[in-house]
């Protein structure tokens, strides 16, 4: 089977078929892949160059490699250590993801396996909160945090990231739980299995990969989040993205260091995203694409 190709319209059928079998589409795909990947590759290469090799025009591609960029980023040159920020990001990511799953799993169960009446309305309410710009609620949150001494406190961020990811998780889990055949659940219940047993032995194994993908995507969104973190944290609770924005202004322009920092901070997301590639589409499309 050959897929349709817009630019092949004008060719006669024989030539077209020959072309489709030929190497051209594969070559084009490779070319496109490499062009889009080039900035990422360049970032990694620059992170391994010395500062003077990183700042040349034309670029020094074959310059010798060094880990100095990473050493300086991790505070070797007397700069601020990124570890507190990385730990804050990990804390916010892991804790908010656990909270999200604790709240979203029962909710998704009540929207799929044993649906409440008008469950579509509830589902769409969850989604609608995602469409209203978060920035509009930022000021009251800021004032509340200031008056309760929660500014620059990582737990405030945990709560906000939980609310930010909860609708996404409810939609994703609802989609994954709906993939479980109702008949399996009903059969287990008719056999006299109690609810915990049904959940543990029937639902959990089948929904496991979906739950893992949901957790991963929630963690990524929390790890990436900048607006709340930027407005509500300062020194002690700053997350990795906030550290990254401040890092530039305080240290001036050091390309190798900027690249090393970007690589380090993106690494967990890249690793997680590649690991979850198969479920990524279903997750990011809120379960609409399977």
């Amino acid at each position, binding site marked *: 089977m*050959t*897929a*349709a*190709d*817009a630019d*092949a*319209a004008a060719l006669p059928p024989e030539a077209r078929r020959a072309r*489709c079998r030929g190497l051209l*589409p*594969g070559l084009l*795909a490779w070319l*496109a*892949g490499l062009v*889009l990947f080039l*900035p*990422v590759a*360049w970032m990694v290469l*620059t992170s391994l160059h010395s500062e003077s090799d990183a700042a*040349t025009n034309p670029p020094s591609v074959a310059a010798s490699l060094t880990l100095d960029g990473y050493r300086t980023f991790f505070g070797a040159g007397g700069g601020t250590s990124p570890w507190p920020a990385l730990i804050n990001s990990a804390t916010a990511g892991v804790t908010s993801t656990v909270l999200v799953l604790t*709240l*979203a799993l*029962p*909710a998704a169960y*009540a929207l*799929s396996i044993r*649906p409440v009446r008008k*469950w*579509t309305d509830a589902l769409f309410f969850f989604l*609608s*909160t995602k*469409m209203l*710009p978060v*920035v*509009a609620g930022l*000021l009251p949150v800021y004032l509340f945090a200031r008056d309760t001494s929660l500014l620059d406190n990582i737990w405030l961020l945990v709560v*906000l990231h939980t*609310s930010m990811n*909860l609708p996404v998780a409810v939609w994703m889990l609802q989609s994954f739980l*709906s993939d479980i055949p*109702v008949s399996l659940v009903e059969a287990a*219940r008719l056999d006299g299995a109690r609810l915990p047993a049904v959940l543990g032995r029937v639902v959990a194994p089948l929904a496991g990969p979906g739950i893992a993908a949901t957790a991963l995507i929630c963690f990524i969104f929390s790890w*990436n989040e*900048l607006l709340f973190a930027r*407005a509500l944290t300062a020194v002690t609770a700053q997350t990795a*993205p906030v550290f*990254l*924005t401040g890092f530039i202004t305080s240290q001036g322009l050091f390309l190798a260091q*900027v690249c090393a920092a970007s*690589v380090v901070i*993106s690494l967990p*997301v*890249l690793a997680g*995203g590649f690991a979850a*590639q198969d479920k990524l589409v279903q997750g*990011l*499309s*809120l*379960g*609409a*694409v399977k």
Partner: protein
Amino acid sequence: MTDPLTAAPAARAGAVPRTAGPRPKPPALRAWATRAPLLPALVFLIAVTQLPFAATLVISLFDWNALRPGERRFTGLSNYTAVVHDAGLRDAVVTTMVLTASVVVTSLVLGLLLALLLDRSFRGRGLVRTLLIAPFLLVPVAAALLWKHVLYNPEYGLLNGALTWAGRLFGVDSPPQPDWISSMPLPAVEAALVWQWTPFMMLILLAGLQSRSPETVQAARLDGAGDWQVFRYVTLPHLRRYLELGTLLGAIHIVQNFDAVFTVTSGSLGTANLPYAIYRTFYQAHEYGQASAAGVLVVTGSAVIATFALRVVSSLFRGGVSRG
């Protein structure tokens, strides 16, 4: 072949009526038992996301500047008058619309081309797919920094470095070395965002392409349809719902984009979109009342668009079922 764009939700609506479990309970109690698992999530979400909006609404009716804390007083709708007449905020509305529309459309078109290429089998397809996803998996701030400093930098950036190379290659003595961000600020932000969002669109559209039934395509070919006709009359109609879904999800994220605008241009040179403008109003100008009024207007506008968008989503899901 089942259509993967199905909504489980709607499928369940038409599903068999379910039994209540082994022991019958009174109907009211049963209804609450079914509802109970949903409540913690609902209550939490309303408390954390809806209460701040209510507070924003109240604050928007006050004249309240953080630098003059003692002078907070009720002023009715005068903040709204100020906001509507604020040229900066009006520009931000236009910028947001231009930014969102251009990024969504461009990444959708590029994503479609890539998805069409990746729909064929060729050597190393899995690897190319992985390479293509990488831009989407960079932390947005890191991606924005990468574009700002490593690609756009007028002296050492890769773009101008490539121009120098090309100049040497073709014997041009002084190749152009544009200052990308100052000479084209909005396109500079857009390019960085398109680069990050094209893989996302590609993934959704590729899933759409791979869900086409091969029988339909073969039947069309037997009827003598060429590649273009198959694309125009079979593939494109099938992809319509996937294109709508990509548009909707892309728009939700890009309307609210803060990272790229904040990092690449700091909202200067006419690139301040609404999230950035509101952030700046309360963070730099400390005009709490006006920032809140702007927030209320933005929420109202978003609610109108969201109602429309939700209708698209629910028709997507219903459409999936009627076809599936």
